[in-house]
């Protein structure tokens, strides 16, 4: 594996420009002061109650995601490229979804094999021919970006279903501003706080035609036991909308209502943080108690907008991911600005053979997996783990893709032994409404806190950092 790209220090031992002021400040600040601020940050997080749940871990039902007080900094120039690339990518995702559930030009053109769509469990036949307001399927996207050098941004994953983490982008900034006002004064940092307004505007702009002039928006959560519940309540609060659970909603005459102390009130747009499978027990999983019986009938009647739309999973599936460069070119006739990680599709025998031969060097991921569960990191795995994975791959090759192990870029991070480089990724959030697509300058930087680790997922011991985009 190549030496990781260090975002602060260049190989010649100089500080890169975006980090120059931070570096000076770090030299002036005694280590004790940093340590003290770290403790203060943790206390603040706990008091606010920003927690997440780790499934299958009874001890840690509510845990804090470790927060690293050293910010991750991108220059304004870098951001301009990234922003353009993100908008391009999300535009392509929306066009792709519209196409897949209608004309299927891309299949007829032979760009993507049919069975990759039709055999795919996240493809929703219920959406065939179903219109959605303004042809927008992915209103909120979280695109995971990594860097391996100074030039390129590489997309690791598209999250087009119910991406989470934006509350950390907002809260991390709040806390940093409280803890390090002096450091802020020395930088010009693009603000992130308009995200809730942008989100609400985007949601209102896609209200169904039958909605009133001031549409009612609600956030649908699976409930307090969901790992992202804090974020759901945080966002509902910031947006000033009701935080509803399935049992709060009822469908009558193909319209959706919420039960209020004043009787039933119509809902027009649902920002849903419940997966497709659980949305409507009459259409999807009949055992779901999180959903709303009849919701899909109201959706088909065009009386409710769901954000994101049903069936977007087909666009962020890891097997589809490998076709993203082709998808961008097909719909936009543009070169993709953001790169893809080279990906081997294990469903194709020749590629599978290569993957099996090189397991020890590759990262193998489940096509439908997320949260860092069920993946193999070849270079870090034991022989036994690799062999176990080999069996899994042979048994169900279409369930996996493989990628080279990327030397993710590093940022300085607080560790027990002082500041040290740790691997990071970035999840910016892309919002699409009727008239425009916006990306609030910033995102969630996740950091693998263990030395050498490449796994940044919070469920696997990752932490977060505030992400600064310099306003130059």
């Amino acid at each position: 594996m190549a030496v990781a790209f260090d975002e602060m220090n260049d190989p010649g031992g100089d500080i890169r420009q975006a980090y120059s002021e931070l570096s000076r400040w770090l030299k002036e600040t005694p280590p004790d002061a940093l340590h003290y601020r770290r403790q203060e940050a943790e206390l603040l997080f706990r008091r606010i109650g920003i927690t997440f749940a780790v499934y299958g871990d009874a001890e840690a039902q509510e845990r804090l995601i470790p927060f690293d007080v050293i910010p991750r900094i991108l220059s304004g120039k870098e951001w301009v490229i990234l922003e353009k690339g993100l908008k391009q990518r999300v535009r392509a995702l929306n066009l792709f979804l519209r196409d897949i559930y209608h004309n299927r030009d891309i299949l007829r053109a032979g760009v993507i094999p049919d069975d990759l769509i039709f055999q795919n469990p996240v493809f929703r036949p219920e959406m065939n021919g179903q219109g959605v307001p303004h042809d927008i399927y992915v209103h909120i996207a979280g695109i995971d970006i990594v860097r391996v050098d100074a030039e390129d941004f590489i997309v690791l994953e598209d999250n087009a279903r119910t991406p989470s983490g934006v509350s950390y982008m907002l809260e991390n900034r709040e806390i940093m501003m409280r803890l390090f006002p002096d450091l802020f004064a020395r930088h010009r940092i693009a603000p992130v706080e308009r995200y809730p307004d942008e989100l609400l505007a985007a949601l209102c702009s896609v209200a169904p035609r039958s909605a009133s002039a001031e549409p009612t928006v609600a956030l649908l959560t699976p409930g307090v036991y969901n790992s992202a519940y804090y974020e759901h309540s945080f966002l509902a609060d910031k947006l000033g909308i009701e935080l509803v659970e399935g049992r709060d909603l009822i469908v009558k005459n193909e319209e959706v209502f919420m039960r209020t102390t004043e009787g039933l009130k119509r809902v027009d747009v649902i920002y849903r943080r419940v997966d497709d499978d659980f949305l409507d027990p009459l259409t999807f999983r009949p055992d779901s108690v999180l959903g709303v019986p009849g919701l899909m009938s109201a959706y088909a009647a065009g009386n409710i907008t769901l954000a994101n739309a049903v069936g977007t999973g087909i666009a962020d599936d890891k097997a589809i991911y490998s076709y993203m460069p082709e998808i961008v070119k097909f719909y936009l006739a543009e070169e993709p600005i953001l790169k893809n990680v080279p990906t081997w599709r294990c469903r194709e025998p020749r590629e599978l053979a290569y993957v099996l031969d090189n397991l020890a060097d590759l990262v193998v991921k489940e096509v439908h997996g997320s949260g860092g569960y069920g993946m193999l990191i070849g270079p870090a795995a034991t022989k036994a783990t690799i062999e176990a994975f080999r069996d899994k791959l042979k048994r169900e090759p279409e369930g996996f893709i493989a990628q080279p192990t990327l030397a993710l870029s590093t940022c300085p991070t607080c560790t027990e032994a002082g500041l040290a480089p740790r691997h990071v990724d970035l999840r910016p959030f892309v919002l699409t409404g009727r008239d425009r697509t916006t990306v609030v300058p910033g995102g969630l930087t996740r950091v693998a806190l263990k030395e050498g680790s490449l796994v940044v997922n919070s469920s696997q011991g990752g932490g977060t950092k505030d992400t600064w985009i310099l306003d130059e």
Partner: protein
Amino acid sequence: MLSRTAENLFWLARYVERAEYIARTIDATLRVTALPAAYIGKTNEWESALLTAGASRSFYDTYAEANEHNVVEYLSFNPANPSSIRNCIEQARLNSRAVRTALTVEMWDTINGAWIELQEVWSKGTTSREELARFLRFVQETSLRFDGSAYRTMLRNDAYWFSRLGVHLERADNTARILDVKYHVLLPDEEQVGGPLDFYQWRSILRAVSALTAYHWVYRETLKPWLIADLLILNDSLPRSLASCYDNLARNLDQIGVAYGRQGPAQRHARGVRNRLEHSHMDDIFQRGVHEFIQEFIADNARLGEIITKQYLV
């Protein structure tokens, strides 16, 4: 607002109020039992504390004997007791998480802070009377902070009124319960009236509803059982009296009715109970029987809870 939100606010307030009441009951019982045996007589004060807390039936599933250690543990910390202080605080936190958007930062902070302290400081219960005293103070202060922050920071809208409904419904139930358990020592024709036992019982009742000082201010007399009953039932200037609770319940329900432009059975029922209290005299109540009166009140109060639930919370 969402019915579920209103329901959570209502129960959140009830749990906090209940936790405080149980803490006060334990505190008052500790004071009586600290007296020399000659003053207390043969009654088992811990048994009576269980009754007051409404936990006497389930208690014996866990413990054989109602002594200080067992009762304090059961009422304060036992997970099998749905109304133990620990369960009340945990339920309150769960309700708070579910309605965070309807709470002010100060209210959330109070409940979340109490929940954290419960886990970090009190996870193993208490091992001495000093610790127990600190724990009970912590519970009462949590309730005061919660009430105070609700009063000082909440918008005066339905969220606030539903939360108040929870406080007053629970409070009325608690005051009625202590009267129900102790009514016999308040009867004017009881033998040995004014004996040492009764005197300390009276003080302990007043202490449990934080009305000992209030009594002296209102009546400027030594403790007399019928005046204590009058204070706790009919005196609407005492925040924990039944009359005051129903003043508040009727008023808060009225505010909700005005805001929603619609009155209903809850408003009528609350007004009915309030009017009955307003037009009652202690003499009549004693004549008809305090016990019967209280029993009827407890049933009426529970009925109001059901009506509110049906009208607004589901």
